[in-house]
């Protein structure tokens, strides 16, 4: 018999707020976090960047969460994760001093890891030689170090790992943490995703791949998932972390239960490096697996937080995938992409969007897809255009689809005692 698993704490650092309530209020207000790139000087390179906008985290201060001496030894993607993890633990009112720390695990994914660190040390290597590369270089950049550092910072000694699956890293991490709890290998998991890649080199790479929006003169309207005029994703950054625990553990400590996590599915496209499989067949199978895992019929699903990147192919194929998985019910359920406001947080997207699922179920309100102006005949579902909507949401899904053809889906449900 598998354990039931519940969500009891949420923490977030995002382009639309560096704490849960600011983030959620911004989402419901339909606020965009996109603006001109400020993290580096776009004009200090021999040729121009085609994309000049991003959804950056603003005014992030690590010092309330991390010792000054340690901050220097952490890439910013690790700092975001520690801040979000500590906020999630506080939100869960989880007193780690009272916990059996061998039963508390961490599973935090990052798609890329310490890109800032790689770039600055590569420059030092070229300009000043190998002896100037920091002794902290490797432990700052490796993508597993968010999980490693969160365990060091919190004392969590249970199962600890990280998924590195591009834009599905966060969702895979949460799914794997869910499995660990189901199987009883831990009582509590601190899990989600983190990313910080608004850097020259990653920007150049995504520009060359023609993946990002070039709506540089109208940044706040650049991320427009499912809209006919969409022209690519807008890069975001930040971290979304959840505290998951077994129902038994949550009840025993009198925790506030936000939602129940009930399903997880994953598949591969086995198709192409970056392009999704035709008709979103990999994403379709991922959703079907997740519903099967949750023991739910498609007609029971009320809301899908879509991967919805605002690229031509993703949004078209994800729409087809939803129709393939849900049949006629695809037209009855609500679909939205909060990336219209947060931008695409890559490996952190699944973490942040799992928080959206939990909050949607808790507050019974669905955040909108903003910037929805021109209907695309190929994208003909109910995308909750432009205005957040009150609705009965009992069951909700979140999709993450990553380069490499990784597809992952999680399912949450309103908590009922039975």
């Amino acid at each position: 018999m598998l354990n039931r698993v519940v969500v009891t704490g949420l923490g977030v650092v995002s382009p639309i707020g560096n704490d849960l309530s600011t983030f959620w209020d911004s989402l419901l207000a339909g606020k965009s976090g996109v603006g001109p790139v400020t993290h580096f000087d776009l004009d200090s390179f021999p040729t121009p960047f085609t994309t000049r906008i991003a959804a950056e985290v603003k005014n992030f201060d690590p010092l309330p969460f991390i010792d000054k001496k340690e901050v220097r030894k952490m890439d910013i993607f690790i700092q975001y994760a520690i801040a979000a993890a500590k906020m999630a633990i506080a939100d869960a009112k989880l007193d780690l001093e009272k916990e059996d720390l061998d039963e508390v695990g961490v599973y935090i994914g990052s798609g890329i890891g310490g890109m800032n660190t790689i770039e600055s040390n590569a420059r030092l290597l070229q300009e000043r030689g190998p002896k100037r590369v920091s002794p902290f270089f490797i432990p700052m950049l490796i993508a597993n170090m968010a999980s490693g550092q969160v365990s060091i910072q919190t004392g969590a000694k249970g199962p600890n790992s990280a998924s590195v699956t591009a834009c599905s890293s966060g969702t895979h991490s949460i799914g794997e943490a869910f499995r660990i709890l189901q199987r009883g290998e831990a009582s509590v998991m601190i899990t989600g995703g983190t990313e910080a890649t608004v850097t020259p080199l990653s920007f150049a790479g995504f520009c060359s791949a023609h993946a990002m929006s070039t709506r540089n003169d109208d940044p706040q309207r650049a991320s427009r998932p499912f809209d006919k005029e969409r022209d690519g994703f807008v890069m975001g950054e930040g971290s979304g972390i959840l505290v998951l625990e077994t129902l038994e553990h949550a009840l025993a400590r009198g925790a506030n239960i936000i939602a129940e996590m009930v399903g997880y599915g994953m598949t591969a496209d086995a198709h192409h490096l970056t392009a999704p499989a035709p008709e979103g067949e990999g994403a379709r199978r991922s959703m079907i697996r997740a519903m099967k895992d949750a023991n739910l019929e498609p007609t029971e699903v009320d809301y899908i937080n879509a991967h919805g990147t605002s690229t031509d192919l993703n949004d078209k194929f994800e729409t087809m995938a939803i129709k393939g998985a849900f049949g006629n019910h695809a037209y009855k359920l609500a679909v939205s992409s909060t990336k219209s406001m947060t931008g695409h947080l890559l490996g952190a997207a699944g973490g942040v969007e799992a928080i959206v699922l939990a909050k949607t179920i808790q507050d019974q309100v669905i955040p909108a897809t903003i910037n929805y102006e021109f209907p695309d005949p190929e994208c003909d579902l109910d995308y909750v255009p432009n205005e957040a909507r009150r609705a009965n949401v009992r069951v909700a899904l979140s999709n993450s689809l990553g380069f490499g053809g990784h597809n992952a889906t999680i399912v949450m449900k309103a908590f009922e005692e039975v």
Partner: protein
Amino acid sequence: MAADTLDRVKQIIVERLDVEAEEVTLEAGIKEDLGADSLDVVDLIMELEDEFKLTIEEEDAEKINTVGDIVNYISAKVS
């Protein structure tokens, strides 16, 4: 010269190791008293090399245990 060197070394150690200036005495052990680990020591040596525009050879770096060792080493090299 030595007093000035001590001040500059002190400032770097305070900043890098996040310790109080009063703790950084000539006798203070960099690992034992000031809490540095082996990576911190490498980092500190790199910073000192930059600050004083010199190269600290690996075999010399291994002999450095206290703040006084650093000040003496730098004073000898710079003079």
